[in-house]
């Protein structure tokens, strides 16, 4: 199981707590994890990745194993510890990005 930590504001949409667990078919990548997350919680569509282009929203970051993976290719495999479920994949609101 892949563990994904959801930011505070989005937990109010999913009503699923801080961490959710996902079954991911095939290679475990940013794309496959986010596809599985949005499949399970469709209300998150458009909040992490833009509709249509599926690009990461500008003020969202992806962390795991003390690394910033935000700028990694979306089809690159995630770290082994994330694949094994010993470390979570963190979706984070960037320190910038709020307004007023």
């Amino acid at each position: 199981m892949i563990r994904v930590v959801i930011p505070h504001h989005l937990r109010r949409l999913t009503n699923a707590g801080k961490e959710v667990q996902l079954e991911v078919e095939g290679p475990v990548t940013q794309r496959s994890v986010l596809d599985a997350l949005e499949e399970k919680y469709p209300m998150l569509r458009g909040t992490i990745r833009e509709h249509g282009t599926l690009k990461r929203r500008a003020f969202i970051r992806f962390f795991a194993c003390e690394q910033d993976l935000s700028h990694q290719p979306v089809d690159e495999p995630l770290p082994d510890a994330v694949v094994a479920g010993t470390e979570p994949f963190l979706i984070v609101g960037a320190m910038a990005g709020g307004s007023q």
Partner: protein
Amino acid sequence: MSGVRVLVGTRKGAFILTSDEKRQEWEVSEPHFAGWEMYHLKGSPINPNRIYASQSTGWFGQLIQRSDDGGKTWEPVNNEFAYDGETGTHQWYDGTQHPWEFKRVWLLEPSLHDAETVYAGVEDAAIFRSQDGGKSWHELPGLRHTKGDLWQPGAGGMCLHTIVQDPTNANRLFVAISAAGAFRTDDGGESWLPINKGLLSPFELPDKDAEVGHCVHSIAMHPARPDVLFMQKHWDVMRSDNAGAMWHEISGNLPTDFGFPIAVHAHEPETVYVVPIKSDSEHFPPDGKLRVYRSRTGGNEWEALTKGLPQSDCYVNILRSAFAVDSLDSCGLYFGTTGGQVYASADSGDSWTPIVRDLPAVLSVEVQTLP
């Protein structure tokens, strides 16, 4: 017992204020969607328990929430606003052409005629319609094709912020866009007509009476007279007696004719309200005095309404969607400020009291008159 439900959108959440028909004692809710920018909330005139809310942040983008129990519980509905076909370009601040990009929903306008239909006005400016209660959204692209290449963003962005429906004709809508002007459709949104004749913008446009490009701030109508429109433009308060075919100025004796909201009394079609703001760069009331101005003559002759409002050291703004009118026998008025106050009058504006003083900056105020 009848009453009112005031829906307040703020920079950091939404609040629901409720009272009975006396409007003396108020209950203020806990924040809904705490921490999110709530540009607008509005209830369906057909089913008052159906309320839509526009929720956004810089981090997570746009969401649309819907309640079917008067705001007690909410569920997110569809938040995908995809422009129809080629997005094209519009004027940018530097005079170049810039592609249309969706940013947020400024307002949600539930239909007067169909319980499942709701319109959304968005930035970059366009109008969308849902006919399934927000489960899907489709643009009415004819509007953007009405000289859209000449539209340009105002200081607050290029937003469609006003949608006014004709209660006698489901196919007629009026919209206003900053800074493109006012437009009307008579065929349910297929085709649109610029309705800006008579507007003059000598300090904002090189061609002061251009067909499009004017910075219209808001438009109001009395439901009994759908051909009579009142407009607060960037500068100038205007009136049209022929559904926007021609406008004339009614600023009269206002201390300044800059402002954002405009409203019409629920039972007196010639009674109009504005809140004068000092200027386009100084967004606060003149002389530090918060005054609502009322005309009982359809414009030109205005009286200041001050009882209960701060008359010194007041430097808040009242945004375009932050003024609302109820339809109780003694007409109630409500407005919110960027300082977080929501004021109410239960006597057509003669006197005012704050319902609440310390909310986040108020973006929008709507009121539902409940049976």
